[in-house]
């Protein structure tokens, strides 16, 4: 009995020793890969940031209104954001390769699932970012056009456009990562439908006179006086 216990312990110790002998070099290799990955990622981040600054990407993003969105979200400039994203992408790649060296099957499976999801998340972020940029651009264009043509509530129109495009981008981003596809689709349909119906009812009932004027303006072509008779040039 005693001998069996001792043998068992000896076996366990030898297994542990064997496992450690097998695991420790792998762990070391993993750490080396992760460290090299960090170095490579850091170097590339530095180079990419410098290149982006030379190409004046920040100026372009400022002009497009992207920088303002980033500032609102308490995020750094576009060049900083791109270089940081690249850093994390490269380093994460090295970390994944390093972990795969350990040979732990269940961990490897989880990582594979994460890797499969990563591009989707990235694409979703890009969709959301571009969507917010477009929302910002078009709402500003609508605001300027509304003010310059003397529309009664230009800011309302501008905000409606911003919300609609933003909501569209948000639902597209959620659909990209496959999150509650049906729910998102339904929510979008309901909200969009309700908005249009609400606008139609509001326009038709509350603004009957305005609706008549707009329709007359659109379809009844009669001689209308010019805004003024001055030639600016």
């Amino acid at each position, binding site marked *: 009995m005693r001998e069996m216990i001792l043998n068992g312990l000896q076996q366990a110790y030898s297994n542990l020793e064997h496992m450690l002998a097998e695991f420790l070099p792998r762990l070391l290799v993993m750490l080396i890969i992760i460290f090299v990955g960090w170095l490579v990622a850091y170097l590339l981040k530095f180079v990419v940031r410098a290149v982006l600054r030379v190409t004046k990407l920040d100026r372009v993003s400022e*002009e497009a209104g992207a920088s303002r969105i980033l500032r609102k979200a308490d995020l750094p400039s576009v060049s900083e954001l791109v270089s940081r994203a690249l850093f994390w992408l490269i380093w994460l790649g090295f970390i994944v390769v390093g972990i795969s060296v350990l040979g732990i099957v269940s961990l490897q499976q989880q990582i594979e699932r994460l890797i499969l999801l990563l591009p989707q998340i990235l694409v979703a972020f890009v969709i959301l970012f571009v969507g917010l940029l477009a929302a910002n651009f078009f709402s500003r264009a609508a605001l300027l056009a509304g003010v310059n043509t003397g529309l009664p509530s230009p800011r309302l129109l501008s905000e409606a456009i911003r919300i609609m495009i933003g909501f569209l981008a948000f639902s597209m981003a959620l659909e990209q990562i496959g999150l509650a596809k049906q729910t998102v689709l339904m929510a979008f349909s309901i909200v969009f439908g309700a908005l249009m119906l609400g606008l139609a009812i509001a326009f038709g009932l509350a603004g009957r006179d305005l609706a008549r004027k707009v329709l007359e303006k659109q379809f009844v072509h009669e001689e209308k006086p010019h805004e*003024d008779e*001055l030639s*600016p040039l």
Partner: protein
Amino acid sequence: MAAGMTQESFLTDDFLRQLISVGEVDLLVGITSNEGSNSANRAAQAAEEAVLRNFPRDRAVLINLDGGSKDPGLSEGEELGLIRKGEGRSIESLRTFRRISARSRNVFTVGTSLRTILAAADLSCARACVIIPASAENVVPSWIESLLRPVYREGYDFVAPLYSRHKFDGLLTRNILFPLSRTLFGRAVRELVPTEFAFSGRLAARCLAEGSWNEEALQETGEMWIAIAALLGDYRCCQTFLGPKVRVSAGSSVVSAIRQTVNGMFWSLDSTAPIWLNPPQLSQVHTIGPDQQISGEYVRVDRKKLLAIYRSGIEELSQILGSILSPDTYAELSKLSSTEETTFHLSNPLWVRVVYEFAASYHHSVLNRDHLVQALVPIYRGRVASFLIRHRASNFDEIHADIEDLNQEFERQKNWFFDLWNMKGQGES
């Protein structure tokens, strides 16, 4: 010629063939049209009469650029209702007078038309060129002669037109384009966006070679860029009085006029900054005929609407204007928006500050540039309202004194503008 040879690839084979058959010429008349050939008839007849009557011993070519043509297959000469032999023409050219055309189903932009004419001038070695839009309502042979003669006979490189105008017409020119160009370029012509103008072959070759013709600003206001190139370069410029210009009702085109011309002006400032940042001495551009003639017949203007748009713009665009203007300037504009119509006055110093801050913000790209220029529209309307209120009963001398004061104000704030222009620019680099 060399510049033209490198540019010839954008000319169609048919047009190039016609140009080669014409050979070298002394005078070139370009008629630009985007409404089919009928609208070009009047201008073409005036051009032919002007050339045959005043330059009968010189070789001339008349080029009709017909954009939006319904029948681009018409052969040479068929398209223009020119004075034909035996149809009441009492004079004929002693040398050659040729007519050629370039047509396209697509509408020609200003830039495309100008570039085609510049290339044609360069390839045909024309000494003097004049451009007439087919839409010009009251073009007469004497206009063409008045524009061509200074270039052809007196050695000028650029001739701008001068018209007799209504006292409230051309306010965009008088409030932004003219004072800016006068202050920054050292000399200025009153019509910086001329519809009819003349230029020398030398200037044509330079503009053809150096113009960034694919730029949107040049596509829309190429004529202004040619004028600025002449004013800033070593070119002899003058302006010649043509007479009354038929008034064209602006309607709602103020926005598009500002989007095109102010964008073109700011873009030109951006691309020529190294030259005007070392400002030359102010010098006068020679004027042939009276400098200005202003008429004062009644026109209907809705001042209340102008003020309403100004007030709405200042309130609704607060965020956009806040990123373009300094806090002080915005605060003054904001304070002004609560003023009654009778006392509303957007003063010259404030207006100059607005224009300079917009120009600097355009240079620093604080916003999408088209949006930035559009944000100027409500303030411009406020300025127009202020001008109309102030000069409702003013005569020519009073208006002239006010415009001169505005020009002086642009001059006074020039150094501050240079600092504004360079300040952020240095920070960026």
